[in-house]
């Protein structure tokens, strides 16, 4: 039913697109997403996947073409990174509000300037409020699995939202790992055909993307917000069904060695794997530390986060982007919002690290635990700290 191969994560994304029998791909190559587009174009050119590959002149056009193809009911995929995601920006919002089930993989990249093609989360955080379902994969297998799941989630009639699958640029996108690939029949049993309920069709004309004056705009936005929140059980159901069929389980909030953990690290993206190794080492040394890997970013898993942190005394959030002039890291501010006003109030310490492709080393995660303990126990007036900055 499945085979295990050593392939690059970007190639695994292309394999997922082929296995999902995608109809239309429109994408513009940009580092570090380029290998995804290269491999998909080969797969289509070689006749392995019967799909339209639309070459476009920009990311704005790429997502606009995807919007159109999703509107006729075609299964649609694109991929981008960094500046490309920002060039898509206005179309991101339109795709979500039109409830079109486009799937996009983002190889997360820092934003200019200064120009930097390496990984961090600045790009996805700038697109945080665009109305897409957004989640994170930590390695090649996860991005393969979660890309396949993304089509099932996006096209489900209880959902009908675009889905953004994030993986860290270079740290995941360019790494060759063993990946268990599913055959098309297995994927087809998990992923029913796309049947968009009101597609563009000459026999049944509809208007999509009409304007809404003040008397309607608030209602449109309320409907969109309520519908996005209602996707939460659909996402969980898809991931659970994937686990039951194929044995790999995903959850909105994934916990690691939380039993008895007084100090909990919260990490989103691939550096959670480094953090997990550090947690093992610290646990062996007798420190009561644990880890939360935040997988689902939108809709935000408020209740699951509160549950997972219900016994924590210190929470350390490690962000890979800065909200300039704001409260520090965007993941941390979301976490604070989730816990504010609730009975259990752990102390939350915000660190920012891994900007523009810089590694977060195991000893840096270990030192975050020590520093956070010091900040809490000495009650230091620290809003957030940037790890490893030369000063």
């Amino acid at each position: 039913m499945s085979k295990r191969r050593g392939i690059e994560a970007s190639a695994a994304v292309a394999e997922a697109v082929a296995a999902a029998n995608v109809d239309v791909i429109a994408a513009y190559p940009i580092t570090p997403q380029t290998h995804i587009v290269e491999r998909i174009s080969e797969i289509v050119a070689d006749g392995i996947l019967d799909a339209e590959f639309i070459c476009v002149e920009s990311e704005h056009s790429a997502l606009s073409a995807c919007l159109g193809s999703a509107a006729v009911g075609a299964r649609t995929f694109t991929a981008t990174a960094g500046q490309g995601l920002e060039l898509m920006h206005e179309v991101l919002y339109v795709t979500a509000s039109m409830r079109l089930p486009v799937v996009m993989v983002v190889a997360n990249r820092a934003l200019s300037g200064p120009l930097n093609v390496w990984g961090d989360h600045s790009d996805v955080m700038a697109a945080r409020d665009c109305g897409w379902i957004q989640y994170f994969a930590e390695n090649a297998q996860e991005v393969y699995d979660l890309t396949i799941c993304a089509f099932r989630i996006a096209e489900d009639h209880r959902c009908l939202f675009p889905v953004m699958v994030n993986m860290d640029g270079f740290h995941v996108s360019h790494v060759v790992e063993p990946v268990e690939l599913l055959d098309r029949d297995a994927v087809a049993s998990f992923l029913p055909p796309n049947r968009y309920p009101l597609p563009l069709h000459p026999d049944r004309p509809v208007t999509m993307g009409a304007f809404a004056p003040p008397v309607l705009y608030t209602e449109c936005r309320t409907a969109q917000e309520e519908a996005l929140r209602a996707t939460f059980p659909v996402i969980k159901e898809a991931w659970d069904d994937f686990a039951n069929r194929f044995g790999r389980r995903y959850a909105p909030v994934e916990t690691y060695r939380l039993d008895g953990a007084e100090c909990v690290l919260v990490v989103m993206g691939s550096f959670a794997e480094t953090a997990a190794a550090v947690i093992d080492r610290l646990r062996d040394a007798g420190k009561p530390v644990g880890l939360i890997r935040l997988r689902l970013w939108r809709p935000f898993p408020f209740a699951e986060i509160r549950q997972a942190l219900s016994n924590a005394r210190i929470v350390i959030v490690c962000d890979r982007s800065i909200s300039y002039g704001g409260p520090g890291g965007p993941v941390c501010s979301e976490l604070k919002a989730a816990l504010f006003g609730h009975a259990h109030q752990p102390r939350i310490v915000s660190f920012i690290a891994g900007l523009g492709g810089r590694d977060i080393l195991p000893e840096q995660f270990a030192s975050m635990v020590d520093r956070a303990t010091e900040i809490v126990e000495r009650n230091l007036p620290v809003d957030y700290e940037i790890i490893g900055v030369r000063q």
Partner: protein
Amino acid sequence: MAPKQDAAMTYRDLTIGNIVTEPGSAAAYRTGDWRSQRPVWDKNVCVKCGRCASVCPEPCIVHDAEGYYEADLYWCKGCGLCAYECPKKAITMVEENV
């Protein structure tokens, strides 16, 4: 979105993605709501050239049985293009009483 019932619609009445399933429904949208001035024709000056009707962006200016022109106020936004373009200055924009 069915325009005639805009003000009565709740967010639950909207279709997925606010898709409009009734073709030609834009004609039901009462753009006359936007108007703060209305065009008034002076038939003693009008020469029935029809330039007002041809420049109306709506287009909601039609001629009556005698060949004189008037605006359908259901759609007329009060933009004033007709008055500006009239070669005889036969059209006056009059304040709507609010």
